């Protein structure tokens, strides 16, 4: 008598499998590539496409930890300033005679520290939301970068450092390889480990997570620290590509990064979304920008397209819901 009531085990449902946001993104990605091919005969050159990834992958490093931040239902808008500060500190220390390898480590440390500070402020001052805290540190970090470098450029890095942003390994851009490695690591971390599970739990219900004995503050600090660290990684690649750095580098990156995450189907209310979605949307936006660039479409047009895509991404869950209701009405009438 009781067995009868047991809810049937969910079978693998083909329809719901394909009706996932990630597949919509793949579809969109294919569409964009087809359009691009029509727009420009030079588009589908594999060598050129690989090269294109080098132009947009620098900020992709921040997308990975930002997925964690947004799953926690938080946000970090200080990332671009962290990039600037860690790049500036690296350049200045190199030019003061610090060996490049050490300067790179300093860069990573500065970024990590910035992230750690964000996390610490957020958990210590519970009244302040992550937006407010990172808005303040966004201004502060950028401000410090300006004080250090006073609106100048700093560069003249050793020749080997160029390899980061411009080098190839076996014909594949070095930056793409590094990104792939990080993407796998973050993917495993989010979807396979206890840490990732805790992040999802916190994003869904922070109270229940706390009452289950999850150390919510610790996890938050770790996530923000990771974000700082990855911002510094972005700083390394960005500086290498540009050859020098200024206090105003990477401006606007925070919005690009957040846009990629949200477009990737990671809900800003927390607890939902997959890393793959964000990764697909990195390439989607990247290739869109590249294709339109080939056609000399102004950057503003691109912004409009991205904006529309974002609205679409936020709308889609509600659209799905309406479809269902509509189906029911059809059936009963």
């Amino acid at each position, binding site marked *: *008598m*009781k067995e*009868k*009531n*047991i*809810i*049937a*085990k*969910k079978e693998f449902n083909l329809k719901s499998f394909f009706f996932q946001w990630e597949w919509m993104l793949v579809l969109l990605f294919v569409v964009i590539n087809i359009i691009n091919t029509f727009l420009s005969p030079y588009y589908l050159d594999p060598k050129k496409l690989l090269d294109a990834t080098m132009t947009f992958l620098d900020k992709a490093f921040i997308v990975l930890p930002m997925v964690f931040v947004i799953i926690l239902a938080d946000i970090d808008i200080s990332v671009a300033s962290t990039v600037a500060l860690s790049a500036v500190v690296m350049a200045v220390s190199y030019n003061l005679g610090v060996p490049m390898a050490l300067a790179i480590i300093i860069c990573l440390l500065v970024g990590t520290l910035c992230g750690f500070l964000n996390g610490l402020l957020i958990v210590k001052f519970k009244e302040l939301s992550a937006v407010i805290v990172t808005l303040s540190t966004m201004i502060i970090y950028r401000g410090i970068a300006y004080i250090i470098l006073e609106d100048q450029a700093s560069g003249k890095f050793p020749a080997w450092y160029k390899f980061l942003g411009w080098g190839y390994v076996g014909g594949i851009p070095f930056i793409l390889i590094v990104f792939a490695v990080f993407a796998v690591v973050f993917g*495993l971390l989010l979807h*396979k*480990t*206890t*840490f990732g*599970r*805790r992040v*999802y*739990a916190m994003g*869904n*219900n922070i*109270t*229940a*997570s*706390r*009452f*289950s*004995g*999850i*150390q919510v503050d610790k996890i938050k600090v770790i996530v923000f620290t990771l974000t700082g660290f990855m911002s510094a990684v972005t700083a390394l690649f960005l500086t290498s590509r540009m050859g020098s750095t200024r206090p105003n580098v990477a401006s606007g990156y925070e919005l690009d990064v957040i846009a990629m995450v949200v477009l990737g189907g990671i809900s800003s209310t927390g*607890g939902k979304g997959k890393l793959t979605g964000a990764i697909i949307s990195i390439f989607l936006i990247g290739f869109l920008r590249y294709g339109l660039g080939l056609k000399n479409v102004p950057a503003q047009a691109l912004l409009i397209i991205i904006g529309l895509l974002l609205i679409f991404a936020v709308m889609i869950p509600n659209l799905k819901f309406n479809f269902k209701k509509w189906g*029911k009405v059809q059936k009963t009438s």
Partner: protein
Amino acid sequence: MNNFLEMRKITKQFNDNVVLDQVDFCAGKGQVHALIGENGAGKSTLMKILAGLHMPDSGDILIEGSKVAINSPKQAQELGIAMIYQEIRLFPDLNITENVYIRREPMKNPRWCKLIDWEKAYEDTQKYLDYFGLKLNPRRPVNTLGMGQQKFVEIIKAVSQNANIIIMDEPTAALTDHEIDILFKVIGDLKKLGVTIIYISHRLEEIKRIADQVTVIRDGKVIQSCSIDEVDINGIIKAMAGKELEDRYPKLKVKLGKEQLRVEGLSYGGKLKDISFSIKKGEILGITGLSGSGRRTLTKVLCGFEGPYEGSLYINGKLFKSITPHMAKLNGLCFVTGIGTSEGLITNAPIQENVTITNMERVSKLGFIERTTEAEAAKDLIERLEIMASENEIVNNLSGGNQKKVIFAKWLFANAKILFIEEPTAGIDIGSKVDIYNIINELVTSGASVVMISSDLSEIVGMCDRVMVMYNGEARGIFNKGEVSQEDILYYASGGRG
């Protein structure tokens, strides 16, 4: 008999699972109609259909003989149907009045100005609070209230809608006896006004007290529907579970071991005053008191969710001057929260993930979760607690009683040694209550100790070795089993002194 409300041949399916199968349900004007059945029988689902939260797959609803369409909670409200849900659905940061009048605030004249007449709202809320005998300020934020008081805010919210059908889904699960008396008096008054009340409860004594009619459902079908005079409790139990019930409180004699927890002179921010008690391995200590007496605060402080405290806390002889939730967990202390709050479960995650969340290390290697091991662990507990769902079912889709069992499962999974269990059997059907007591027995025989925070005095008297009665943040006395009666406990709980 002329029926004010009639639900005809209601059928409802949730992904191939037939939850209601051609259910007929009638209720007369000015009557209290009890709806009872096991956990997961479909009681809440039937009532959510009436309240416009779910749409039936087929069937009709008639009010005063004419067919009505209820497609949304708003439509239900317009038809004069109000529902008090099983779980508390208040906005924790808003105050009592704002919660009571949410989305139907009284307006100032002229109405097109859309200015809310807060004065009137506060005044009216105050009147209701007085009527319910609650000494509360209508401006008080809801998250500062105890569970019972929050339930009353829900009740006031429903009553103040001047509805002519009020559905109460297990309203008394977190209420103390005194509060239940108040509620019943209100129900009596509502009846006189001609309001129809549909009353869902697992406490059959209550039903005998207030109901005029009873409908029993099992597995989504009506088993019995008749007047209260025609049934006896044992008959109902039999109809509900399809079997006879043995001993209601299967208390075991367990040999007590060494002291596991000792609290000395604990005080906390004026809410707890100089509390001392201890508990031994194998012991069940009951803590009871009216809502607002500090039972819950005491638990939260001891498990590290509130603090810092003054006084000393010893766990297994080790002194703790302060404690965090993590430290508490590492030392085997845990808080098995009640349902109806957001503290217990991550409702949009599957059962499996909710169960293992307390101790993920057990199902992972080097930080990587092994999903098959995890599923096995969850399946074990599902079987042991007779939860009626598979391990990958989303918790939100479970009936209230089954959710409660999932909370139990997660703390069993954590291998906790000192369990503070809040309202262990609230919302659990009579048959499964015994199962829960048996699990508690199993826990104490295997060397754990249990603190039961409960409002159900017969449960306290039936299951606990000792009882601590709290009043106003103080411990008014600790009594051994057999030394006190339910009446004595009530006397101390309402401020009496020995």
